[in-house]
């Protein structure tokens, strides 16, 4: 018998489709890979909470037929932390854009990494604030044009993989929208990882970023991404010169040893309860 095909509509709020994203917008490819990853894991959609902040990417939970929260700009991780602390057996996924996750929500991001709480954060990095009109973000490349950098961006950009690793995340990967299959695998492994997982996905916003940088349609901008990325296995065999200007995709870092935050919290509760009941038992 042929393997059952994924029932995308089972995971989607079909009455909300077509979605609001521009034709060819990479966010749709990410949502599809995310559904594929969840289907691979066989998770019950009722056990999943998907939480977002503000921005084009943050509209994703609106289309997913799961427990969803569309919160305030940059604050998705704070709400997600609350959900996870209250319901630690549930699967908590945050989907954010680059601006939402690393500028407005930058502080929440580094501290979620530091705590190593079992949440998966997908950062759709399309190098720009898409929804609000194309302002430059912390990941807009040096020299690139945005609505607020008409003469070219002079800010150096964040390397989200290094940032996440440095701050303490225990699963860090980079994927790109030109390769949905690889993205699905990295998302799946990140969701399965027990600890804070960060998956950066290089994506196209041809409307706000591409249009200002000679890539005004989806196919051109996805090609630009495809030509920049090199899979880790291949990159490991390349020289530094050959890697100039390239971005490495794949699993970048994983640490299964560091304690996870809700586990630590459970242990703390147990310890304190044992102490208080011992006290009560001794009649003091």
């Amino acid at each position, binding site marked *: *018998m*042929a393997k*059952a*095909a*994924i*029932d*995308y*509509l*089972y995971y*989607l709020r079909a009455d909300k*489709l*077509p*979605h609001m*994203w521009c*034709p*060819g*917008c*990479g*966010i*749709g*490819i990410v949502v*599809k*890979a995310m559904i*594929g990853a969840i289907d691979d894991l066989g998770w019950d959609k009722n056990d999943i909470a998907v939480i977002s902040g503000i921005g084009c990417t943050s509209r994703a939970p609106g289309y997913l037929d799961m427990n969803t929260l569309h919160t305030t700009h940059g604050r998705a991780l704070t709400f997600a932390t609350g959900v996870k602390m209250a319901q630690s057996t549930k699967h908590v996924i945050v989907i954010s854009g680059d601006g939402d996750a690393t500028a407005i929500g930058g502080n929440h991001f580094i501290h979620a990494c530091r705590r190593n709480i079992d949440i998966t954060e997908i950062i759709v990095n399309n190098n720009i604030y898409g929804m609000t009109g194309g302002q430059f973000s912390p990941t807009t490349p040096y020299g690139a044009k945005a609505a607020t950098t008409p003469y070219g961006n002079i800010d150096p950009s964040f390397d989200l993989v290094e940032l996440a690793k440095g701050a303490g995340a225990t699963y860090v990967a980079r994927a790109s929208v*030109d390769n*949905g*299959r690889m993205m*699905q695998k990295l998302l799946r492994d990140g969701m399965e990882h027990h600890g804070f997982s960060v998956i950066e996905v290089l994506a196209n916003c041809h409307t706000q970023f591409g249009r200002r940088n000679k890539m005004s*349609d*989806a*196919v051109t901008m*996805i090609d630009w991404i495809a030509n920049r990325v090199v899979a880790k296995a291949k990159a490991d065999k390349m020289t530094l010169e050959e890697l100039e200007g390239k971005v490495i995709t794949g699993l970048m870092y994983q640490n299964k040893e560091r304690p996870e935050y809700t586990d630590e919290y459970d242990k703390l509760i147990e310890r304190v309860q044992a102490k208080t009941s011992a006290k009560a038992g001794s009649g003091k």
Partner: protein
Amino acid sequence: MSDIIRYEAKEKDIVIIIDRDLCKGCDICVQVCKQDGLKLVDAPDKWEGASVEMINPELCNFCKLCEIQCPDFAIRVLRKDEEGTITIGKSKKTSAEQ
């Protein structure tokens, strides 16, 4: 009613389904298809004014790249089993229902 076109590769067990209400004519699937099986056509009846069609379903090699890369859940590449049934998720559907 949804506006769906269904293609069947006669020589193979492959069924391709395009949902014209979801397709935004972005051209991604056309570009990823190494078999040159798809083409963009004018769709004056649709909001975006363009949509995708199959040139020849017999060319399809079931790589599924078009389905994986479509941002709009608009194209599906499915396989029938010996009895002509397509299984989607947990529900079995006859190919006629698809």
